[in-house]
């Protein structure tokens, strides 16, 4: 995992931990295998919040029109996808 991917992963884990506390859906063990998008942990609004958090922390925007959701079945793949979609601003 590259430094950039590691940073994104930490941001996602922080976000999910906070989100699960706030919504009462946690605690849950978050491993690289967890399917963040299809396990019901986050909904559309939480996904937007996650994207905005990642963008704000990394000072980049995400080219969401190119997101390939079928290639995201676990946390590791989500991290790789977001890293690919980063557009430095």
């Amino acid at each position, binding site marked *: 995992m590259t430094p950039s991917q590691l940073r994104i992963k930490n941001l996602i884990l922080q976000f999910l931990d906070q989100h699960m506390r706030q919504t009462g859906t946690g605690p849950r063990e978050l491993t690289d295998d967890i399917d963040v*998008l299809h396990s019901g942990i986050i909904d*559309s*609004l939480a*996904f*937007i919040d996650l994207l905005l958090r990642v963008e704000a922390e990394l000072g980049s925007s995400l080219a969401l*029109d190119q*997101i390939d*959701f*079928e*290639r995201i079945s676990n946390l590791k793949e989500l991290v790789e996808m977001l890293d690919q979609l980063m557009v430095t601003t």
Partner: protein
Amino acid sequence: MSGIRPVTDADLPAVAALYERVSRSGTGSPAPGLVEYFARTLNHPMADDELPSLVYVNADDEIVAFIASHVRRGRVGGRSLRIRCTGQLVSGPNAGPIAGPALLRTVLAGPQDLAITDGATPLVVDMWTRLGGHIHYGASTVWNRPFRPVREAGNRLVPDRYRSFRPTGRIIDLGDRLGRRWLGPNPPPPNVNAQPMTTTDLVEATRDAARTGRVALDLDAPFARWLLNEIAAVTERGDMTANRVLRDGRLIGWYIAYFKSGGTGQVLEIRSTSPENLDDVLSRLLHDAYRAGVTALQGRMDPWLFPIIRRRRFILRAGEAALFHSNEPELSRLIACGETDLSRLGGEWWMGHHLESIPVTADPSDTEPPNADTAAVSQVLPDSESKPKRANGH
């Protein structure tokens, strides 16, 4: 590879099937006419290839989500505006939480000057505001002027699909007749008359009424004809009535509304050529709506209506949200401050994709819209209904 791309005509059957499954019957077989309705509402005279509707497709190029882009033209001062009215947003069960936000964000990041919508659900409101959009609070407020309160209450309590269970009969009639003594609208001054409005009338009136420095809809004849035809096609909302209002033969304003006998009338636009004329235009509208048999008249609180709605003490409530988004702070400021002439006419609130009967129309590009004749409609009412003995309402 999955991702987002502009919708094509070949996609429309799949788009309609997805919409049917998510927003209508729950089946995957689109209602008769739905594919054609999507085609008509997306491929209109102001459609813009740079502001397309979008689909989200999976690796097999199967459509799993869709967002409609209804393009409008506007202006502010001497400048033309590209307005993108976002409409139907549907996401299938396999799309997960990504597709909807990805589509909306792609649309809001487009090359339009201003994005709007006016029939937003709470979820869409939350998505828009997270992505930099704003609620237009005035236009998200609905005014209501009841005429036949007992029947109107029945309509509100019992949804349309159970309409056969709505209370009817002598008690309802008696209640409404008693209510009419206080709620029947005063007739407009005798020199204030209404005449059917043609598309040319609408284009010219909109242009002439443009106020400096306000964000306004820009109409040309082909688009106005298309727009009025499509509005008229949504017959489930009632009979479209587009009337010029004249005082001593001179134009003082106009209104475009749905009149539904026995149901709630809905105003899409009411405008006057000057603020001083608005009272007479509104009186004419209320009178025509009452005589057409509507139980109550409803519209959104467009900024220019605020003084008169307050004075007449109409009932106000929160309605479907009107939203806007612009990357230009000055445009956002103008809308937020009510410096806008945009009404429901420029939005997508009136569309009928979700309604039980799919709107059908003849070739809208060549024909004048069917305009309800209010004089003829009023003849439907018995004399006792059309002439309140004592009318002290507004």
